[in-house]
């Protein structure tokens, strides 16, 4: 093996920042019933970061079609619902943009129904809307999707349970441990107060970072309302820089 050729310095791994307590959901959150039989309950083993953690897939490049970031343009007709533009930046926790990283989104249609065989909500499917998109961030971390505002929908978690309108986001970032799957919510949604998925994040300020902001500058006349949603991924330990 070529290991001997490497100097000790080049072997040093820059670790990533750890999450502050309360800023991410715990594994077990009883009000969200699906965690009961699925959340790991034994203590996690603390893992110092090695190359296995700080490297990660460079995935999705070269596999993006022109309509992938316009979910209203993937079928013959226009989908029903309120057209929206969702845009923002992917940054790391040091405030640096995360360029050329894949973002995938999926969502229900305007009636609150997913184009998924197992979704039993008796709301209509929309033949002009699938609800899946992908894009790469540009050099300054910016991304942009055109879609329609998803509807709220009922689920069986508790009596009269309704998920607030949300768009699922999946982001890679630079390392396997920067991987993030989250949900973007809409400002002023009264269902947020009752939603155990949203409420599973203990820290209120961190929780609010999942709510997009209405933005008049992004809004286009006669066309679409604009929402801003920035996503922050874990960054390398800043104390080791500069």
């Amino acid at each position, binding site marked *: 093996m070529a290991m001997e050729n490497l100097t000790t310095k080049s072997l040093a791994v820059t670790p990533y920042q750890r999450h502050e307590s309360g800023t991410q959901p715990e*594994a077990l959150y009883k009000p969200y019933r699906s965690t009961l039989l699925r959340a790991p309950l034994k203590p996690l*083993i603390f893992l110092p970061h090695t190359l296995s953690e700080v490297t990660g897939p460079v995935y999705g490049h070269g596999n993006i079609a022109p309509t992938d970031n316009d979910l209203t343009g993937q079928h013959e007709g226009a989908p029903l619902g309120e057209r929206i533009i969702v845009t923002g930046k992917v940054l790391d926790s040091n405030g640096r943009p995360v360029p050329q990283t894949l973002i995938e989104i999926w969502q229900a249609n305007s009636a609150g129904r997913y184009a998924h065989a197992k979704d039993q909500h008796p709301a209509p499917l929309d033949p002009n809307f699938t609800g899946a998109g992908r894009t790469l961030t540009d050099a300054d971390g910016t991304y942009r999707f055109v879609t329609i505002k998803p509807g709220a929908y009922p689920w069986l978690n508790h009596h009269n349970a309704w998920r607030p309108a949300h768009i699922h986001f999946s982001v890679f970032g630079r390392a396997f441990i920067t991987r993030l799957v989250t949900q973007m919510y809409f400002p002023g949604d009264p269902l947020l107060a009752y939603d155990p998925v949203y409420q599973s994040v203990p820290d209120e300020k961190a929780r609010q970072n999942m709510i997009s902001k209405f933005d008049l500058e992004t809004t286009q006349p006669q066309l679409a309302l604009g929402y801003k949603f920035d996503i922050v991924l874990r960054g390398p330990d800043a104390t080791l820089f500069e």
Partner: protein
Amino acid sequence: MVPTPSQTVGPFFSFGLTEGRGCVSCIAEPQAKGERVRLVCRVLDGDGAPVPDAMIEIWQADANGRYHHPDDPQHANADPACKGFGRMGTSEGGICEFDTIKPGRVLGPAGVLQAPHLNLAVFARGLLKQFYTRAYFINDPANQEDPVLALVPKERRETLMAHLDDRGEGRWKFEIHLQGKHETVFFDV
């Protein structure tokens, strides 16, 4: 800045993440160097029932222990046929199968070589964030000196082992128990 919180992938992610081009079952192309492995993963809940709506992502090094990533100082020589990434949704039986090669040894803390391992992230309805684990190859002598396995209580190390499956050559089974007596070791990364 505080990182955006994670939320569950939910039950309906397949059309966004793991169908069509989103399904990456081939981690290493047939021409990749190294011993071929078909890794059969099975995800089970606290009752031992299969989890049919999980997604598994895998990240691994090539046969020489090099990651296909610029932060690996050896990446320029990484095997181009081993991109190192896989992603699949589980079947009704909680199963997904990846085609890959056995990775080489990667440097670990203090310059100690790690034993061959695959890095896994598990996502599912009911998981509010992904959980990270590793699959090692049982009976690989390098496991004895692996610095990460050494951090795991002896009685739980077995949960990180893939086992040869006699139903086919190069077929390895790796069970992920989210909960219960045999709960898999998950790492705080």
